[in-house]
């Protein structure tokens, strides 16, 4: 459980605060998504939360205790996966994964099993400097969780991964959360956030523009309707049916019984569209 209250952070000499009055809490075992365009302040927020930047205004509590009161035991409990892979190029994948383990006084996962789980088994003894971008990304992700942290910070964990590997990573994140790990996920990827997060916060110019579960946001900001494409007499026609009014639903049922249906689309909003509505700008 990590709680952030009224957090404001300004870089030295900056005209305005980069993070402004941000409050949220991520309960144990939940996945909390921080979404926002480039420059919104996501990384800055994360850096304050992992004590890389000083806490200026506001409060952060981990397990009920203020962050400032926690020393090394905080870092023993935290795992961080960085957006840009930072590995020792001359050490093998396995060595990179295990080289800092001796600093933790706790049980850890089996490195070989982790490497194999993300398809790095064959490359385990190859220098990390020779890894592809996606391989490095996977290794950094594994390094963040090998020491079994209770609080996991992930920055774009699936960027640059092929869909199949991304799916494996997502499943590992879900498994960790299910076993009680609190996950703070920073991303631009709305689909990823939608699939993983229990709660998402849209960060816009440093403050939270909206915060709720992805489903609640999509319902609140989307249109409850269905678009039906039919081919009638060789011509393609489109019709939109609302899901609220009973007569619209009856018309939809009728349309579905008629022949020539080519496609059906739910017009429920995507998180991306919600973001656009909430902030008036697109993600980049």
């Amino acid at each position: 459980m990590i709680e952030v209250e009224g957090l404001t952070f300004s870089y030295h000499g900056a005209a305005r605060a980069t993070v402004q009055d941000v409050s949220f809490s991520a309960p144990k075992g939940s996945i909390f998504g921080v979404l926002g365009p480039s420059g919104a302040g996501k990384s800055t927020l994360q850096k304050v939360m992992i004590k890389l930047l000083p806490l200026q205004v506001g409060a952060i509590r981990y397990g009920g205790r203020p962050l400032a009161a926690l020393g090394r035991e905080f870092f023993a409990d935290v795992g961080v996966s960085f957006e840009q892979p930072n590995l020792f190029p001359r050490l093998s994948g396995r060595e990179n994964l295990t080289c800092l383990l001796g600093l933790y006084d706790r049980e850890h996962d089996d490195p070989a099993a982790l490497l194999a789980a993300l398809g790095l088994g064959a490359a385990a003894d190859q220098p990390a400097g020779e890894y592809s971008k996606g391989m490095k990304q996977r290794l950094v992700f594994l390094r963040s969780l090998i020491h079994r942290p209770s609080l996991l910070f992930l920055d774009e964990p699936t960027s640059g991964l092929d869909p199949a590997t991304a799916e494996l990573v997502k499943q590992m994140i879900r498994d960790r959360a299910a076993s009680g790990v609190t996950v703070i996920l920073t991303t631009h990827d709305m689909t990823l956030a939608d699939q993983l997060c229990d709660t998402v916060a849209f960060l816009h110019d440093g403050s939270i523009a909206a915060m709720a579960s992805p489903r609640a946001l999509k319902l609140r900001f989307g249109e409850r309707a269905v678009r039906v494409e039919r081919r009638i007499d060789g011509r393609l026609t489109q019709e939109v049916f609302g899901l609220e009014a009973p007569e619209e639903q009856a018309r939809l049922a009728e349309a579905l019984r008629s022949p020539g249906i080519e496609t059906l689309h739910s017009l429920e909003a995507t998180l991306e569209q919600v973001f656009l509505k909430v902030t008036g700008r697109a993600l980049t």
Partner: protein
Amino acid sequence: MRAAALWSLLWLDLRLAWRGRLFAVTLALGAVMAGAVRIFAPAELGGAHELEELAAAWAAEGGRLTTLRPQAQAMTLQARLVPAVICLDVLVVGFFFGGVMLLQEKALRTLAAYRVSPGGAGLYVTSKVLVNLLMALLYTALVLVIVPPAGASIGAIAGVMGVVSLGSATCTLGGIALAAPFRGLSSFFYPAAVASMVLSAAVPAYVAPAFATEGMSWIRALPTYQAFFALCELLGPGGRAGVLPGFLWISGVGLVITAALAWWLTARRVMQEVA
């Protein structure tokens, strides 16, 4: 727990230094320098008989030769160069390596991964010092094997290793402290070059002691100057036992200052600007 953590970090730093060829460079330098001294520097005393002739001629004229340091014995050029070869690595190279190790990890951003572990600045700096210390001791041993000191006792060799250890630790710490504010190797190069030039001002003073007088006496406060004469004292019959306490005093103070600086800058500066 902290000891176990230090061992594991040390093991990591040793592998990094080994694969980064720092051991190879150090030992190759030692072999080349000591080899050159062995081959080119005369191992016999030159000019001693000339001095005797001069004294005799002087006495014949009715003059009297006063020996300023009667206990001092002449050293061969070879023996006199060995301390210089040892100091070169320990003080100048060790100084560079400390900074280079730190800046490489800054550039790779692996420091950020370390920063979010329970490691801490003290452990980080200690491990770097120990790796450089090991390299310095191996280098010194190699030099002493290639150019064996005539008649130096086991105690004297142990003393040399002690002087080297103290000098190496101080210089690694100095290198880390100096490198801490810099982003990369290229910007660190100039201050490091200036610092090693200052440190090597002790070389002319060692070769010709008069260099360190007449307004240049600050040279005598350099750890290099003290180390040169301390090593010279230990390896040969230098007859200036007084320099050993001087060396211990200056390096002890230097060690405390550089350790405090290196730790403080690493904790407050390096560890804060990563990620």
